[in-house]
């Protein structure tokens, strides 16, 4: 062993640690080809590396059994601390009212046309289902863990509750283009104007639901064979449109839909389940009148057609407030729904005045509507903001191609917007 060997042994450690440059690895390989001592050293480090990995794996396996108990214990403790936190929020009712206003803006807008060209005939057997006066369904947004929207659909009215915002209720009047939002915590009611995209999109959603059921019944789609869904033998079908894919599982005996999975564009995934048709529904549940005991808030909320400026403002809120000065890893309906409670928490934590907080909440919602519109109009878009610092004008975070435009609209980390030729966007 000479003085050089000492340096090679340091390098050997780096190589085993996986932090050496390729050229350094080559140099070490060359040296150990000639130096038996260093070769033995490198081999020993590699053996020890394997032993360490093994040891950690054993510890991991041992931990796995205890882990669940541990997670349970921590959850229990945490929920206790959270309960006290929640209580303090309840006490400040103006904030809860703000929360209501901030949260109401979620209206899922789905695409319009599925399976172009399929001539759906109304089989007699499905007639009662299609004409059901009421449909009750759970819509899971995103994966199985995503927020659940419980929907009661009665004609042109929808009553909607979201699992991640349990104190909030929305009643949508699709004919009138209005929504009544109710916050159970502060007993506050707000009317929201939804004329335009939201109204159309939601109407189409109801129509889509019906069409999806027809697809199953007529089997104008590819069969997926049989599978058990919640203990019931089910037959599956999948239909693919231009921009969407729909998988439907229905009771093999009765044709009653059990589960419908949607993929829209590349951004929206949802599953519908727990269908009920024509069960009695109390008319008060879908009434547009302010329920007894609720106070109508004096504020104008407009969720009419959203613009790019709305979207830019939404990005600002997402990066600056929700993300603590960093753009999120991904944006989309599912993410936005999940982040809404965070936004509310952050607004409360920052003691933002109610009126301003309300405006922020509405802006965030309008921004997401704009994004949903892009999908719906099949406009190509891209998001590259993951980890970008808010205010970084050198990095593009979002781009889209307006219909018929030769250039792309690009939004940068400092929220400046420029028209850029597609070829220049490579960087």
């Amino acid at each position, binding site marked *: 062993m000479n003085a050089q060997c000492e340096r090679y*042994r*340091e390098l050997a*450690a*780096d190589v085993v*640690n*996986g*932090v050496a440059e390729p050229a350094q690895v080559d140099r070490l390989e060359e040296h150990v080809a000639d130096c038996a001592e260093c070769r033995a*050293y490198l081999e*020993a*480090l590699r*053996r*020890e*590396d394997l*032993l*360490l*990995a*093994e*040891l*950690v794996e054993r*510890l*991991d396996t041992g*931990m796995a059994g*205890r*882990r669940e108990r*541990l*997670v349970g*214990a*921590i*959850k229990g403790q*945490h929920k206790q*601390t959270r309960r006290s936190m929640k209580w303090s929020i309840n006490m400040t009712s103006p904030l809860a009212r703000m929360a209501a206003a901030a949260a109401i803006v979620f209206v899922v807008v789905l695409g319009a046309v599925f399976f172009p060209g399929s001539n759906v005939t109304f089989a007699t057997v499905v007639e009662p289902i299609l004409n059901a006066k009421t449909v009750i369904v759970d819509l899971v947004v*995103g*994966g199985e*863990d995503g927020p659940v929207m419980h929907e009661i659909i009665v004609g042109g009215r929808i009553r909607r509750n979201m*699992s*991640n915002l349990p104190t909030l209720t929305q009643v949508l009047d699709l004919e009138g283009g209005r929504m009544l939002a109710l916050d159970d915590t502060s007993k506050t009611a707000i009317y929201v104007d939804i004329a335009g995209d939201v109204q159309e999109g939601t109407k189409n959603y109801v129509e889509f639901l019906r069409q999806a059921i027809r697809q199953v019944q007529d089997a104008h789609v590819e069969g997926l064979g049989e599978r058990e869904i919640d203990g019931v033998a089910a037959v599956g079908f999948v239909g693919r449109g231009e921009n969407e894919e729909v998988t439907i599982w229905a009771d093999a005996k009765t044709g009653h839909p059990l589960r419908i999975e949607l993929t829209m564009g*590349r951004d929206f995934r949802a599953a519908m389940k727990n269908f009920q048709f024509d069960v009695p529904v109390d008319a008060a549940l879908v009434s547009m009148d302010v329920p007894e005991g609720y106070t109508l808030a004096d504020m104008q909320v407009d969720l009419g057609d959203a613009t790019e400026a709305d979207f830019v403002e939404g990005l600002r809120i997402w990066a600056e407030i929700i*993300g*603590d*000065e*960093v753009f*999120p*890893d*991904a*944006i*989309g309906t*599912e*993410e936005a729904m*999940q*982040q809404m*409670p*965070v936004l509310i*928490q*952050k607004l409360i*934590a920052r003691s933002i005045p109610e009126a301003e907080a309300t405006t922020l909440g509405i802006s965030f919602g309008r921004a997401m509507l704009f994004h949903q519109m892009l999908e719906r109009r099949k406009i190509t*878009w*891209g*998001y*590259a903001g*993951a980890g970008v610092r808010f205010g970084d004008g050198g990095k593009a975070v979002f781009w889209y191609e307006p219909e018929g435009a030769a250039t792309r609209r690009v939004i940068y980390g400092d929220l400046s917007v420029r028209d850029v030729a597609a070829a220049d966007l490579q960087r």
Partner: protein
Amino acid sequence: MGNGSNQGDEAGPWIAGEAAYEAFFRNHYRQVFAVCLGMLNNVHDAEDAAQETMLRGLVKGPESDAEGFRCWIVRVARNLCVDVLRKRKRLRPPATERVVQARSDVNARYDLEQALRRLPMELRVPLLMYYFDGRNATSIAERLNVSTATACQRLRMARRQLHDLMTGETKP
């Protein structure tokens, strides 16, 4: 979703239910445990400290940004472990003797565990973090709030000293 995946992960579980708890654990537990084990040298104590750390992380969560949080939670773990070590010192006198190992009849695995115990804490912690976090030196640097070069250097020293301890080449 879009171009990225759904990674609301770094934020805390106050977001949305059970899945968020899972994500929080996935993102932090192994690293926190690695730090505690590195400092306390005892799986049972390390689990206790890791549990307490995670709980503090859950409570603190909403105020913090992702990068800062990754660093912060490791700092909490270290502080808690320092407390445990202090208590231990009070409870029992410092070990005056090391268990004498009959080197001939122990296998490599046992050697490794013993060597690991004897490795200085400031090297043992990054080394365990390395194995508990997918062999990622950059992530260790971030968690320990040191430069990547420093993290690499500590890993290098850890590996070399561990080898010396295992082969009995260490100087007293």
